């Protein structure tokens, strides 16, 4: 995404309600800064994230998509994050094939107590995506201004 002529990666972060969303709140409580281009969407569980949402975000011009859930074994719904892990590794393995660097996506486990990890993860992921440059491959026409 271009902001005032300067490239800033736009990151969509899907956070599960029980752990990672609370982890993001904790990062806020502790005033741990991360880039403003990270935008969070709350989902009940990481397993609510349909691979379609990720492709949609890429089509609409997102440069990176990250899915955050509870640590393995801690999912509020016991096994949701295992589904996430399986589904996303399948999707990610196909992204290269679609022409999207698979480094633009990631699954991370962030607990409600890990505010610092949330901020650090967002900083690190944004940097990694920035290094890849803009996502142009899957962008659709609506994104052209």
């Amino acid at each position, binding site marked *: 995404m271009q902001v005032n002529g300067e490239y800033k990666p*736009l990151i*969509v972060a899907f956070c599960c309600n029980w752990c990672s*969303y*609370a982890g*993001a*709140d904790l*990062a*806020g*409580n502790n*005033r*741990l*800064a*991360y880039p*403003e281009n990270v*935008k*969070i*969407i*709350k*989902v*009940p*569980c990481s*397993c*609510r*994230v*349909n*691979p*379609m*949402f990720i492709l*949609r*975000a890429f089509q*609409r*011009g*997102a440069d990176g998509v990250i899915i955050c859930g509870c640590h393995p*074994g801690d999912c*509020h*719904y*016991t*096994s*949701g994050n295992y*589904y996430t892990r399986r*589904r996303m590794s399948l999707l990610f393995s196909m992204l290269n094939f679609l022409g999207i660097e698979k480094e633009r996506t990631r699954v991370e486990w962030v607990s409600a107590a890990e505010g610092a990890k949330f*901020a650090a993860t967002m900083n690190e992921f944004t940097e990694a995506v920035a290094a890849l440059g803009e996502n142009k491959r899957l962008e659709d026409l609506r*994104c052209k201004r």
Partner: protein
Amino acid sequence: MQRIGVFVCWCGSNIAGTVDVQAVSDALAHEPGVVHSANYQYMCSQAGQNLIKEAIEEHKLTGIVVCSCSPRMHEATFRKTAAAAGLNPYMVEIANIREQCSWVHKDMATGTEKAIILGKAAVAKVNLNAPLTPGESPVTKRALVIGGGIAGIQTALDIADAGFPVDIVETKPTIGGKMAQLDKTFPTLDCAACILTPKMVDVAQNENIRIFSYSEVTDIKGFVGNFDVTIKKRARYVKEDICTGCGLCTEKCPMKNVPNEFNLGMDNRRAIYIPFAQAVPKVATIDPEHCNMLKNGKCGVCAKVCAAGAIDYKQQDEYISEKYGAIVAATGFNPISMDKFDEYAYSQSKDVITSLEFERLTNAAGPSSGHLVCPSDGRHPHTIVFVQCVGSRCASCSEKGKEYCSKICCMYTAKHAMLTRDKYPDTEVYVFYIDVRTPGKNFDEFYRRAAEEYGVKYIKGMVGKVSPENGKLHVQASDLLADKQLHIEADLVVLAAAIEPDKSARPLATMLTASMDTNDFFTEAHPKLRPVESPTAGVFLSGACQGPKDIPETVSQAGAAAAKVIGLLAKDKLTGNPCVANSNELMCNGCSSCERVCPYGAITYVDKEFRMPDRTTKVRRVASVNEAVCQGCGACTVACPSGAMDLKGFATKQIIAEVDAICK
């Protein structure tokens, strides 16, 4: 088309310091569907809430967006506000512009821009919100307690006291658990039987309590308020309602050499037995593995001597189905096996015993009538070595022992050492420890009394090896503080074996869909704030099945679990979470993908009749979600290949609208 109101909160300067709130409310005023946009210092205050209520009425709003702190803070508040003004509470969305924006960004320009985008995403979502009504389900006003140790007993008594019926399912022929095997109990040294058996009698006499002893739970279906449970009542070959517990059969049975598990195999019982004098229910049980009549059809002595005619060699296992509103797990613990700790010679010498065996040896009703003797030859021991932490705090040996602290061993070892010195002042008593951990009311005082007043020799260090030699036990140990090796000729060595959850707990947890930690202790819903609830609604935890505990802690947790159960059973109806899955029957092809991923078994299939365009009817199998069981995780929505399954409140269209709003 929705009529949406946007309310931007300043949160004092928490938000307004980094976000230009006026600019945010101005920008959002032009979003599709928005008919009113305002900002205010504290939206959550009474005045702020009134502002929202008035706007709902004045502008006939059908949905609202509050740009404020995290929904985890005040979503409930604003939903109530909306409801008070006649708006469905699920027509409220929160844009988190404090935790996710003003608090993590410093610059006003970027903060404002991000707040606007978060607001737009929330508006885009509300445009697609639909009013939701939580489902209701009835509550079966009966509780099930699984496990009849002191934990289960106390929980059942407390629930029954509040007027609700309770069933206890206990695998053993009697309730009582480990406490029934103990002699005296720390820190007050009152005898376990004296305080436990009256409670067991209370259970037996309480009209609200049924005991299913010698029974197990074989199946659990359903959900909070409505569990369907199958209980297998194993055949005990004695009619429970007729047996008077006189015990004549247990004296006449010719099969005399059956190891007595209640005394941990240190003496024998008959094939027909009553575990101990105060057993509840006080009914005999035939052990089919040792009964000659059941095995070979020869004998029948007990039937002949039983005046009441209670013996029934043809008795079959019985399956009972019952409905419950709440289930309490109280399956307790067991000492771990000493098989892997042969450096202590447990398998080589009868005079190396566990602490629980020590309890039986000192118990007046035990195998030695309470005389502390060496099990090998009955002599009085003069030197006794206690070894603490056998298999506990074993960070490096997890395949052998446990990484955690078993918590109760320091105290019961101090108790054993003190009682020994008190009754037999001629004995020399050593305790080897890594650390002595005695937090708890009057606990440290207790331990110090053992060491200081009773002359128990506490030595920091571990025992390396125990070797049986000439009828004695050669103990090799290190004294870490004096930095020297010790060699002690002991008569008796007592091992404080680590404790672990009952082996049946894991299969039970699977039936309950309750979670466990890696050590197989049941997990609590929140380690600090919801310590007696399992994350699975309607399942509660009592006693040592949740973690190592002594009796005072067990009893307090048992009471707390009962209070939670009573709170649940007192309700006539439960309101569920309305954000549940629902499938579009027209799109569903009945493939079962959703059913396979649902962790709660919320999805079943029904045959539905559909009118086809050519006016014929066709019957198809389609998914149907039980809204009371569905927890709203959304796993099924992604598994569904036909796009039939969706989640209310987090619908595919809503999430995509958010994605679009953010990426625009």
